[in-house]
């Protein structure tokens, strides 16, 4: 069993509070991704599991064992670093054999395990080379290999793909997913890249300023962000936030501001009935902004805007709009033929609106 649980974990660096109120259960064989902007404490949380940082308060368990005072080597974990951290003076084989040598395994077993890991990762032919004679992707495979040979309970990965170029990153992402399926081990993965988080994680933990903002399946978080930060952090291009007033008309609630008008669905209306005439923050994802005007007019969901800039990115065009004083962006099909600096009318579905309290920035739904 390799569940990992954080119980009321806190980490301070002198006066600075790095992590607080950190409570999380990671299940056996789960691929969990910690994501957040730099300085949010995601790496620190990972390093506490590894034993590279002390825990100021609270407990971390791997399985049933409280590991606060267990030495890193006895935690049965393996870590992959952003800069690979391969030993430059050793060959690939020796790099991968190093943890096993430290465990005083016999030569035959070391050879077997290294070779089988090398086979999984497709680096058999480089075993006699030194790291400096390898490309970035190959080096990262060796670093993974060094982790695999240990057959650890938990893999810890600290931004392992950030040093790779964009194309290789996509490829390695797939390989990591494949590897997880094959090894069936718990993985904790740290990244600041929300796409990596969404594509890799069974569950995603969004962090900010040392606090967990939301934990959930990627799509769940994408669909139902619990606050403005999570809504803005996940999803690319990022969600638009528009400050609106709630206005009651004909027994319906409308979120309105200059150039923007949206009718709330029944469910939304029910939740927000006490906020009549008050200001709220409305979030809408660029891909949820539509061209189907007839439907928009029928339901009263309208955006009147001026096209600022249109960026063609292939099948889709990314348009930057100005409505009143606010800037928003939309992702539409390229064949609509958008013309820059012209007025435009767009629409959306009421269900695709995300509604947030203006003070607490928390979602209403």
């Amino acid at each position: 069993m390799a569940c990992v649980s954080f119980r009321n974990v806190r980490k301070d660096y002198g006066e600075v509070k790095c992590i607080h109120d950190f409570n999380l259960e990671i299940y056996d064989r789960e691929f969990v991704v910690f994501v957040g902007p730099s300085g949010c404490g995601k790496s620190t949380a990972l390093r506490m599991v590894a034993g590279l940082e002390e825990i100021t308060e609270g407990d971390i368990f791997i399985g049933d064992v409280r590991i606060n005072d267990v030495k890193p080597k006895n935690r049965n974990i393996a870590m992959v670093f952003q800069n690979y951290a391969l030993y430059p003076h050793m060959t690939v084989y020796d790099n991968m054999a190093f943890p096993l040598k430290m465990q005083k395994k016999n030569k035959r077993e070391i050879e077997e395990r290294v070779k089988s890991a090398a086979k999984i990762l497709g680096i058999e032919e480089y075993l006699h080379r030194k790291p400096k004679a390898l490309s970035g992707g190959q080096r990262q495979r060796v670093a993974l290999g060094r982790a695999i040979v240990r057959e650890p309970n938990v893999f810890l990965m600290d931004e392992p793909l950030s040093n790779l170029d964009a194309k290789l990153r996509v490829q390695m992402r797939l390989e990591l997913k494949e590897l997880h399926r094959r090894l069936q081990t718990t993985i904790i993965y740290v990244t600041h890249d929300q796409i990596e988080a969404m594509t890799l994680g069974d569950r995603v933990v969004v962090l900010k300023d040392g606090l967990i903002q939301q934990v959930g399946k990627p799509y769940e978080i994408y669909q139902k962000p619990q606050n403005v930060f999570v809504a803005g952090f996940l999803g690319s291009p990022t969600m638009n936030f528009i400050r609106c007033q709630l206005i009651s008309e004909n027994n319906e609630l409308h979120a309105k501001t200059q150039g923007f008008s949206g009718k709330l669905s029944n469910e939304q209306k029910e939740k927000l009935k006490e906020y009549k005439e008050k200001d709220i923050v409305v979030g809408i994802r660029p891909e949820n902004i539509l061209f189907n005007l007839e439907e928009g007019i029928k339901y009263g969901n309208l955006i009147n805007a001026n096209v600022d800039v249109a960026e063609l990115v292939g099948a889709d065009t990314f348009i930057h709009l100005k409505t009143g004083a606010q800037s928003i962006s939309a992702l539409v099909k390229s064949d609509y033929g958008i013309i820059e600096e012209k007025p435009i009318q767009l629409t959306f579905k009421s269900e695709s609106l995300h509604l947030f309290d203006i003070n607490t920035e928390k979602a209403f739904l």
Partner: protein
Amino acid sequence: MRRDKLAKNVVGIFMGIVSIAWFFPIYFMFINTFKPLKDVVLNTAVFPESFYFGSYVTIWENTPYLLMFKNSFIITFFSVLGIVIFGSMAGYKLARANSKWAYFLIMYFILTLIIPFQAVMIPLVKIMNNFNLIDSIIGIILVYIAFGSPLAIFLYHGAVKAIPKSLEESATIDGAGPYRTFFKVIFPLLTPITSTVVILQTLYIWNDFLLPLITLQSTANQTLPLGTTALFFGQYGNKWDLGITAIFMASLPMIILYMIMQKYIIKGIVSGATKG
């Protein structure tokens, strides 16, 4: 482009002249070891007509050359070993310690580099005397380690800073303790600095005359530079033939060491300079 080429050629010619000038003393020393005293004095620059091995034989049979060589070797070897071990470990720890004290200490070590040996010579002898370390090989080794360490610490400190910390963290997770991490992972990466330190300190200690002169008194403890001078150069006449031969024999190990370590020292100077 043409001017560049010209400049390159001029520099090349200049460097050729300098290297020949540097080579000549060694050449003279070498050819004079094969001449009897009369020829050494009268025909110093002439290539010997026939090779005379008398000087070598006399030194081998009539002087305690082997003993002096052994003393020099033991002193140099253990001093350099000590400097490398202490210097690298201290440099490593100081580079990794994240405290004001570490900064203060490294500054302190750098400051000691500007104090000339002659300035501390007399108090040093007094202190050594108090600790009963005068005329003792262990005593002189300790002093060499103390004098050689600051430069080594300074060089190692800079080199360790350039090594990513994640290497050590990785080794820790892989199950290596602090000493094993240092000797298996960090120390091998410091090879360029180690060879720089080894060359510099070996040359200095092997050739040093002053410290042995003021601390080693008995004949049994004499080093090569000290013994050679005492035996062949004196108030009543210089035995040039034997002196030159003995010095040549003493310089051979250094020449061999330099040839072996040469490629590392260049790497070391470069990598030390650019943190690479």
